[in-house]
């Protein structure tokens, strides 16, 4: 506190060195209270009222300029950037959501188509199987009917043949029996008697 600095002193010395006729009493009062001869001139600088008007004026101008620059130019600019980014992110998220919904819808549609195709294939398979089964059944039945008809016919034929054969056998037996009896007893029996006897023998 003991040394006078060059620029420090100048302010107050300049004050004291301007003995303007219109000097205010207040100003001269301060000059007396703080004589320029003192080491630090203005005393404690933050309480030096001589500097107040200058500081206030320049602060008002500087801060006003800062306020205008901030509110008109700098802050809207940053706000713009932030808003743009915010919008872009929101847009991108929306787009992503839309694409996701689309892909989900596509997946659902695919599942549905797949299920439909599966059902259809199943239907076709069932139908074909049923049809084939029915065809097989029908052909089996007709074949069976044919076979049984053939069988019946054959049986009939056998029976007829058998009957015919049997009647031939009777005839032969009658002839043979007549001939045998004729040989044995020398007299040929009456055909009617032989037939009756053969019939009786066949029946027994």
């Amino acid at each position, binding site marked *: *506190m*003991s*040394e006078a*600095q060059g*620029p*420090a002193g*100048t*302010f107050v010395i*300049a*004050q004291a060195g*301007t003995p*303007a006729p*219109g*000097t*205010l009493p207040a*100003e001269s009062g301060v000059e007396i209270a703080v004589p320029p001869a003192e080491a*630090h001139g*203005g005393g*404690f*600088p*933050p*309480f*030096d009222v*001589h*500097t*107040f*008007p*200058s*500081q*206030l*004026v*320049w*602060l*008002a101008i*500087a*801060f006003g*300029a*800062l*306020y205008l*620059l*901030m*509110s008109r*130019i*700098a*802050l809207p*600019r*940053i*706000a*713009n*950037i*932030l808003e*743009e*980014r915010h919008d*872009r992110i929101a847009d991108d998220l929306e787009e992503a959501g839309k694409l996701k919904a689309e892909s989900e819808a596509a997946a659902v549609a695919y599942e549905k188509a797949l299920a439909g195709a599966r059902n259809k294939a199943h239907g076709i398979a069932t139908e074909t199987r049923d049809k084939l089964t029915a065809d097989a059944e029908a052909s089996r039945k007709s074949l069976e009917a044919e076979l049984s008809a053939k069988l019946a016919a054959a049986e009939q034929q056998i029976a007829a043949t058998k009957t015919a054969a049997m009647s031939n056998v009777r005839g032969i037996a009658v002839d043979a029996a007549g001939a045998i009896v004729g040989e044995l007893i020398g007299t040929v029996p009456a055909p009617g008697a032989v037939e009756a006897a053969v019939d009786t023998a066949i029946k027994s």
Partner: protein
Amino acid sequence: MASGTVIDPIHQFQIHKIVDLGAPGGVELAFTNSAAFMFGIVALVFFFLTFATRGRTLVPNRLQSLAELSYEFVASTVRSTAGNEGMKFFPLVFSLFIFVLTANFVGMIPYSFTVTSHLIVTAALALLVILTVIIYGFVRHGTHFLHLFVPSGVPAFLLPFMVVIELISFLSRPISLSLRLFANMLAGHIAMKVFAGFIVMMTSAGIAGWLGAVLPLAMVVALTALEFLVAFLQAYVFAVLTCIYLNDALHPGH
């Protein structure tokens, strides 16, 4: 800094004239180092913010992030204390915050001048805040703004005392707002200068002094870190209190 061995911790606060503008109307005016620093701060802030955002890139580079960070920091402070309605004062709060912050940080540069270490500057800023609160409060709410001083739910016989207390607390706001910032910047800078002075004084005392100077040197290093913290913190406190006071103007009912 001093030409001799005597260190003057007050010298850094001296205001000297650069251009003397005489005394129009009996009020002496001059373009001083303080004014130069004020304009320097304004220019620095403006050019930083516009330069940093020159690219307007979607993905910000470092400088742009810093500019955006300062914007969002103040914006979130305003929103959280004064609500969305308070955003109409955002340019004011941002200007105050960035001005005080830059002034404090510029003051940390050796041989520079700290604008906010002068009471008249901090008082003017505090008055600006309080006048904004009062004027906006009356314009917006009319006499309803006076409800700020009449707390609700207080017994009738206590009301006069409460009103007086509220009035005093309201009037002390600009004083505390300005003194807090001023005193912090002043005291911190003086403390740093005093301890730095010890180093110079001890080193001039020979080898033993060189060894002894380690202590104040460590102290200065620690104080410098602390002062950077205080520089930011005081700007933040100033902005937050501004928001709280503006909130009163927006919502005078308690």
